[in-house]
């Protein structure tokens, strides 16, 4: 969720009254934004000898792009409070519309462009800061760090149309980037900003492309190199009166959303408030020739019965219209069908996709906390445990009752812990491996419970001996035959360490749990008899001659014998790998899924 800092005094002035922090927090809560911090509650920092003005840091839901700046927050809250009406955003009709000609080559790299002009704008330092801030917030959120969309703003009086949007070989582009003094070509620019704290992370978007997107004016002056940087020449300042906004994108839907938010928010400061001068985009090669921005309302409908039914209140159609008005939606009862509302969605609300979004807004305006708290009790349903969990719980309780302690290590572990430390080999067909872990601790999904348990013992070296711990939980294995190429398996493991190996103790624990599960101890030669038996095994995790495999013959099909686990004295090297000195130990690990 983005957090927007707004000037506290300015906001309260815009809202027509002052609020205590608690009162404002309450207002935010009801509307569905969150007051994160009121900086006046702490020490305000002094920057360049001037104490910073008090700010309210407000968290905005990730789909409310119209509230990512002071102007949007003030407007939405004023409308919510009934102090203002939704502004009528209007396109002007210029005598000669500015033209943007899009060259087909741009399709290779960043094909969409949408533009607009704000005339007669009056910036103040705080408005200017908010204008830049909104672009940053949009870039970081909706624009996915400029990969999908990026925007450039220019002082229109320093450049002249018609403009062209082209894709050009990097070395053929030459200009002075914003806030620089040196002319550089596309290649030099990449080197110059490589490692730059702010811009460095965007270079990858176009760096390796044979052509870079670039906006030229009529005199072949570079306006911007999207999505990296604008030119110094067309830079906007506090004195800029006419602003050209150009938004380029790889996403056709979001390019319009972005340009709409910018103009809807900052046309407020135009000489004729809320008017926007359109721009003609000439882009026949991809059928994108059009006039931008399209700030028209989207007309849709919502059912009164649906809204009332979902929210659980009984509002008349007119009352619903009044509620929706407070959420910046223009609703009227349909002339023919009183169960239908005609709803006009302003360009600032692209988050409205379905009538459920309209329904939610009616609920918010009504107040979630004012709804009758009813109980969904009409249909009787029956609660049941998941069978695997039920069997797991039986094992867990039985093991705990015999005096063992349950542990809860992590499921992810390092590759070494899962294989090498247990003296096991990775055959490449066993473990699920992660692509992007932040640390070495999380390289694979465990295929055994033992690494986590041995790490737990390592961290509890001071515990009195013997240590007797167990876990019943899932491991995961690869399986190419499955839709998701992997499956979980429920394991039970127990580890004993102390001054004696505990081999017989672990063996006894296995017998006890099997008895509790009504699984009989049988001999291997008892073919066709359900039960379990153990057999000496060679297992590198365990000490030679002190390891056994556990075999199981299913009650439902005792003709089959399956290996379900093993136990043994832990190999001294295993203890050494897990840094557990001065003790000996035994471990057991069993797949309990056959017991279902």
């Amino acid at each position, binding site marked *: 969720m983005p957090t927007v800092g707004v000037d506290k005094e300015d906001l309260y002035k815009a809202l027509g009254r002052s609020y205590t922090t608690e009162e404002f927090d309450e207002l935010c*809560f009801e*509307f*569905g934004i969150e007051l994160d911090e009121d900086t006046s509650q702490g020490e305000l920092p002094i920057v360049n000898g001037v104490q910073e003005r008090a700010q309210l840091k407000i968290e905005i839901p*990730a789909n*409310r792009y119209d509230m990512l700046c002071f102007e949007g927050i003030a407007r939405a809250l004023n409308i919510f409070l009934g102090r203002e009406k939704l502004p009528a955003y209007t396109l002007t009709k210029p005598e000669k519309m500015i033209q943007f000609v899009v060259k087909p080559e741009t399709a290779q790299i960043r094909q969409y462009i949408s533009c607009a002009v704000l005339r007669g704008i009056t910036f103040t330092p705080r408005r200017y800061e908010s204008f830049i801030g909104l672009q940053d917030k949009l870039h970081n959120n909706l624009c*996915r760090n400029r990969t999908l969309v990026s925007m450039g703003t220019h002082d229109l009086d320093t450049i002249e149309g018609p403009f062209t949007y082209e894709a050009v070989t990097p070395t053929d582009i030459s200009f002075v980037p914003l806030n620089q003094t040196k002319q550089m070509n596309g290649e030099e620019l990449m080197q110059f900003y490589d490692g730059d704290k702010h811009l460095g992370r965007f270079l990858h978007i176009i760096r390796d492309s044979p052509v870079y997107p670039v906006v030229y004016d009529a005199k072949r002056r570079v306006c911007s190199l999207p999505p990296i940087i604008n030119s110094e020449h067309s830079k906007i300042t506090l004195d800029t009166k006419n602003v050209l906004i150009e938004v380029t994108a790889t*996403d*056709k839907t*979001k390019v319009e959303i972005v340009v709409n938010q910018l103009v809807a928010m900052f046309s407020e400061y135009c000489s004729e408030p809320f008017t926007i001068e359109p721009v003609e985009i000439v882009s026949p090669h991809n059928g994108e020739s059009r006039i931008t921005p399209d700030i028209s309302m989207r007309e849709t409908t919502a059912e009164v019965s649906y809204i009332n*039914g*979902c929210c*659980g209140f009984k509002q008349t159609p007119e009352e619903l219209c009044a509620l929706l008005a407070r959420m910046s939606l223009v609703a009227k009862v349909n002339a023919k069908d009183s169960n239908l509302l005609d709803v006009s969605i302003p360009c600032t609300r692209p988050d409205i996709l*379905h009538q*459920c*979004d309209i*329904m*939610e807004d009616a*609920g*918010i305006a009504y107040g*979630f*906390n004012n*709804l009758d*708290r*009813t109980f*969904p009790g*009409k*249909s*009787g*349903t*029956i*609660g*049941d*445990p*998941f069978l695997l969990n039920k069997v797991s*719980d039986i094992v*867990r*309780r039985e093991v705990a009752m015999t*005096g063992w*302690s*349950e*542990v*809860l290590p*992590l499921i*992810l572990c390092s590759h070494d812990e899962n294989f090498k430390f247990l003296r096991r080999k990775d055959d*490449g067909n066993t473990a*699920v*491996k*992660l*692509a*992007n872990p932040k640390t070495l601790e*999380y390289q694979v*999904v465990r295929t055994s419970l033992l690494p986590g348990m041995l*790490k737990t013992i390592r*961290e509890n070296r001071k515990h009195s001996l013997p240590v007797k711990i167990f876990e019943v939980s*899932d491991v995961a294995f690869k399986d190419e035959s*499955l839709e*998701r190429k*992997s499956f*979980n398996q*429920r394991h039970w493991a127990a580890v004993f360490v102390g001054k004696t190996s505990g081999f017989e103790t672990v063996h006894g624990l296995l017998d006890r749990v099997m008895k509790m599960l009504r699984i009989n101890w049988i001999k291997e030669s008892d073919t066709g008899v359900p039960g379990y038996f153990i057999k000496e095994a060679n297992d590198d995790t365990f000490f030679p001659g002190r390891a056994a495999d556990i075999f199981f013959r299913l009650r439902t099909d005792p003709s089959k014998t399956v290996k379900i686990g093993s136990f043994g004295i832990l190999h001294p090297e295993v203890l050494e790998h897990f840094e557990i000195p001065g003790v000996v130990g035994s471990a057991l690990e069993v797949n309990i899924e056959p017991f279902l």
Partner: protein
Amino acid sequence: MADLAHLVLQTLDKGPISDTAVTFPDVETGVVHGALNSLAARSMVTYKPIDIEFWTLTPEAEEIVEKGSHEFRLLEEVTKSMEGLKLADVTKVLGAAGKPGQSRAFKNGWIKKDGDKLVSNVSALPEDTTAKDLKTIKETGTLGDAKELGELRKRKLIEKGKKLSYSVEKGPEFALEIKKLETDLTPEMIASGSWKTQTFKPYNFDAEGAVTASGALHPLNKVREEFRQIFFAMGFSEMPTNQFVESGFWNFDTLFVPQQHPARDLQDTFYIKDPVKADEPEDKTYWENIHKVHEEGAYGSIGYRYPWNAEESLRLVLRTHTTAVSSRMLHKLAADPKPARFFSIDRVFRNEAVDATHLAEFHQIEGVIADYDLTLGDLIGFMDRFFTRMGVDKLRFKPAYNPYTEPSMEIFAWHAGLNKWIEIGNSGMFRPEMLESMGLPKDLRVHGFGLSLERPTMIKYKLSNIRELVGHKVNLDFIETNPAVRLDETLV
């Protein structure tokens, strides 16, 4: 000591003992005390301590008692030598006692100086009071004359000491013979019937009992079990969440999370390198429905209007929420739509930076309620009842955003201890885009809610670091001594 105890009893039989130091002068106080204590434990005697101050002689004073005081001995020497004792010979004759004897004798006016000699100043030998007083002190421990006591102390001839002794009387169980006390009832006593006459040593009820050996379930799993019981009681069936690896399709796309959503970033989600890629789901209609609702919109939705990428949908991830399982359960429910309640409590994975409150793995509690004509008021009312069962009785709901629920509400609980509202979970009504893609009828609405298992546990048990609760760094002592869990109980 047994003999002493019997001696005490025999003495007491004749009458109370007013001072053991007098009655048993040769027995050390500690030994006396031991005998009395053991008799008192059997209620055979009662005793009180007597504190007495007394004086003892220094080695110098012992010598005085034996040989006479320095001044007296000097006077004797002076009187013996007819022509007087040369000053220079005093030390020769009396040694170390010479000098103090000389000054004391002068002070007493017993001698005087005659040239370089000392001569007697008294007609007859006076009484040696110093030696006499010291002798009295040695015998009785004190002296009647307090002033003289002070004087002797100043002369460092006596030192103060303390003496402890006891006065003893018969107790309620007084007898001349001591019975053996038993500490525990034994089968032998019952067999022989001796328990009827046997005397038992009183039990020390102020001491702790013997430590018992025990196994333990993990504290977080105990909390998990409490939640499960709440769910069962409210008619919820447990979902099969034994599948850590999900495809982007199930984890995100089916939940109407757009493919460019930040939750799908490498920064937030663990992607799988091996195995490489999931298969398409069996239900091809569903696959196409999802494709369409994202790309073009459907079911009354305008959709996200972006080119939906099948490859992205088939990327494998570690599930970031158990809602991936809920989605599969609801898809199954669509084959036979009817009211249902599902829940799960299981591990989910986030590629987050690890800190005191975040691990890359945590447990998500998730509940799903599907029913015809459900309302938002039902969801709120349900949450009230649900959280009341875990001891939270004041809730409020904040509008929030979630790609797969609309409306979405964050659940805040009033925490009396912290005196503030704290966020404890998320809830909402699943979007029609998600449900209708599965083939669920339009009027079967579905509520979902979720919270982490760790967070309420940490709040309830005042843990500040999640590593104290989950993972290999958890202290085994914490696991072994953690009390039973009752979520409905107010913990102060």
